[in-house]
């Protein structure tokens, strides 16, 4: 019996009345439909007995098709290379599901998002505040429902207050320090409310999604399969390629498209180049958050050749535009392969020097050791991924657990540390950079000849595909439900930073204000990945003009409100 069959029979045995339908479209995918009322005991079994890890939840509005909403929870059984989708059907006249947050704390944001975007309430959720839609969004408009148009504009609301919590019992004596919505160090839109006593942080809360773009809605309505990779690439400014590759993998899985091996290898090479670029960027940012701008400048100087390299390969420094469902668009000629090998040789030497100096730096270690701790139990409960998880001893790496593209053909070791602090995360990222250099050499040596693109015909409707990949920040997952007329019906993205941000309040407990930027920085946050930003509406051609006086008055008003 295969793993999937094992798991299926286990579930059928323990929950005979719960299972309504089971499908196994590929060997490593198991899709179950279950009764909504019985979801909690099943979730408990999956999380605590089978040690599954929650990847994401997807809410889909299928009322025009079969009259139901669907809420699916997607789990990964890392040690068995299995992705499990558990779907519950929700009738539109009773839009609620039992909450599983008290079984899996990491489901907190997922259930809030499903409510914000589809109006399906999670019964028993400990913290049902608004998460994704902006503070002035009207209460009863749920954007991802099929009856809401993609260019809907809500009425303007002047006075809004972000849903950040007030101090609780043991924070009564604390001062409230508002970090954001614009914070100069992080240079991203994020709003943390810190409760501080002197220098020590006693509690925190987070309001994000300022840059929510609504790309999932856009996909459901106006884009087609070949246009989405370019949208997916722009989800993130650093791991864009992984997102577009992961989307293509999801579509290829759903439609049963066989990607030619050369394309798989090219995808893997570009992903590893992106990993090198991202980790060097992170090293620089970590230095910047500590006030050590020299590390920033030197790390980014060492990183620059990889940007020139990918510009020569793909035509752009960051938005590679290489992926389409079925393969890649540009080839790696032998000259380009030589160029890659030369560049990474030089970069490896310089990175070794820089990392060597950083690791021996006593002051740097003083700032990073024992700061921002995340215990292994918390790491598992909040379902964090990537270097953040591996620093807390949770040995997960999508390239090993659910091999994709050319990764089954190469050998490498995953970095793992046990000390759970920022120093561990730094060491892991440094080690991964060197592993990536080695992987690139292995992949180029084994690059097979052949086609770059498969023949993609019509994509059949109502097929589900789940693509997962290891971005530099952690695991990225895309879910696609194909629809009619060669267009997708639902696309859901879960970026790596989504669970990580839920873990940040745990990391901030007991730390100092001075540590705040580096703690948030240590998860390598990609706020735009998490938030999937705003489209500019071209429909109304009337420009809205604010005079400088207006803007100043509005900003003062806002600051007063935030205080």
């Amino acid at each position, binding site marked *: 019996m295969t793993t999937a069959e094992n798991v299926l029979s286990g579930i059928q045995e323990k929950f005979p009345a719960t299972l309504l339908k089971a499908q196994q479209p590929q060997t490593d995918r198991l899709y179950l439909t279950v009764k909504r009322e019985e979801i909690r005991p099943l979730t408990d079994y999956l999380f605590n007995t089978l040690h599954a890890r929650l990847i994401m939840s997807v809410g889909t509005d299928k009322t025009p098709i079969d009259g139901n909403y669907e809420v699916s929870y997607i789990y990964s059984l890392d040690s068995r290379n299995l992705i499990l989708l558990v779907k519950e059907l929700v009738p539109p006249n009773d839009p609620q599901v039992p909450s599983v947050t008290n079984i899996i704390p990491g489901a907190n944001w997922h259930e809030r998002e499903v409510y914000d975007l589809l109006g399906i309430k999670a019964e028993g959720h400990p913290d049902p505040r608004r998460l994704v839609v902006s503070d002035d969004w009207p209460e009863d408009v749920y954007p991802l429902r099929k009856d809401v148009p993609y260019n809907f504009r809500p009425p303007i609301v002047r006075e809004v207050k972000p849903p950040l919590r007030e101090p609780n019992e043991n924070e009564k004596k604390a001062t409230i320090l508002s970090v954001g919505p614009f914070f100069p160090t992080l240079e991203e839109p994020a709003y943390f409310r810190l409760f501080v006593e002197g220098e020590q942080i006693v509690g925190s809360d987070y309001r994000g999604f300022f840059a929510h773009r609504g790309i999932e809605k856009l996909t459901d309505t*106006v*884009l087609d399969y*070949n*246009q*989405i990779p*370019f*949208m997916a690439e*722009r989800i993130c400014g650093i791991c864009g390629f992984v997102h577009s590759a992961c989307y293509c993998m999801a579509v290829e899985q759903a439609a049963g498209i066989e990607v030619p091996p050369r394309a798989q290898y090219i995808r893997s090479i570009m992903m590893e180049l992106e990993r090198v670029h991202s980790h060097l960027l992170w090293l620089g940012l970590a230095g910047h958050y500590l006030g050590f701008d*020299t590390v920033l*400048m*030197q790390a980014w*100087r060492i990183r*620059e050749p990889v940007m*020139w390299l990918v*510009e*020569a390969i793909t*035509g*752009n420094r960051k*938005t590679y*535009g290489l992926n389409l469902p079925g393969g890649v*668009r540009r080839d790696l000629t032998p000259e380009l392969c030589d160029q890659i090998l030369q560049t990474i040789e030089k970069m490896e030497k310089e990175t070794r*020097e*820089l990392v060597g*100096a950083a690791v*021996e*730096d*006593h*002051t740097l270690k003083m700032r990073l050791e024992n700061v921002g701790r995340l215990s292994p139990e918390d790491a598992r409960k909040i379902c964090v991924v990537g270097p953040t998880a591996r620093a807390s001893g949770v040995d997960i790496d999508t390239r090993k657990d659910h091999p994709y593209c050319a990764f089954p053909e190469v050998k490498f070791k995953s970095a793992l540390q046990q000390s759970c602090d920022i120093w561990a995360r730094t060491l892991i990222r440094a080690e991964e950079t060197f592993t990536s250099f080695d992987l690139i050499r292995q992949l180029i040596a084994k690059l097979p000849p052949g086609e770059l693109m498969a023949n993609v015909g019509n994509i059949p409707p109502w097929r589900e595909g789940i693509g997962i990949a290891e971005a530099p920040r952690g695991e990225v997952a895309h879910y696609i439900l194909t629809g009619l007329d060669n267009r997708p019906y639902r696309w859901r993205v879960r970026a790596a930073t989504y669970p990580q941000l839920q873990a940040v309040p745990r990391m901030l407990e007991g730390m100092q204000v001075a540590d705040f930027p580096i703690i948030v920085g240590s998860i390598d946050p990609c706020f735009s990945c998490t938030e999937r930003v705003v489209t*500019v509406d071209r429909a109304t051609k009337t420009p809205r003009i604010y005079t400088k006086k207006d803007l100043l008055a509005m900003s003062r008003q806002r600051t007063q409100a935030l205080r």
Partner: protein
Amino acid sequence: MRGEGAVRGEVGEMISKIKEALICLRAGRVTFRYPLAPMPAPKRFRGRPTIDGSKCLGCGACASVCPPRMISMHDADRRRTVELNYSRCTYCARCQEICPVGSMTCTEDFELATKGRENYSVAVELEMVPCRDCGTPFMTQRMLKKMIAEFCPPWMEKRLQAPEWFWLCPDCRIQSTGLTMERNIRNE
């Protein structure tokens, strides 16, 4: 007051700092003087797209693949206008990839700041051919010419002539084919 170990630690720290400073100084200055000095983009850089009006067929393939939907095609008065607006262009080069005649190309130009939004539009106007039966313009002249020229495969000895219905719009083609089929059935 301070143990020897601490002193050695301090000396080690100082040496690692000096090593760090040397790494930095050895690199020299790596920033370029752009924009005070020019910095051209490398080959095959995906920059501003442009349409070559002398080759464009008016097929509309570019309009159907553009991810931000910034290429539009509309017909008015026996003229087809293909308009490319690159104010929100993503420089993905899909239009270049899909264009059957190579009229849509991505230059290596990336310095696109301008004061007027109208400078972001490039449009090509193409003459259309009216249907022989109903007179509605249905295809551009250039496309029809190309279809006629390429209708006969080059290896055929006897030149094939383009059939009559090439000059009819789609509705009239259906009508005409229907009538022909009806006639054939009646004759059998």
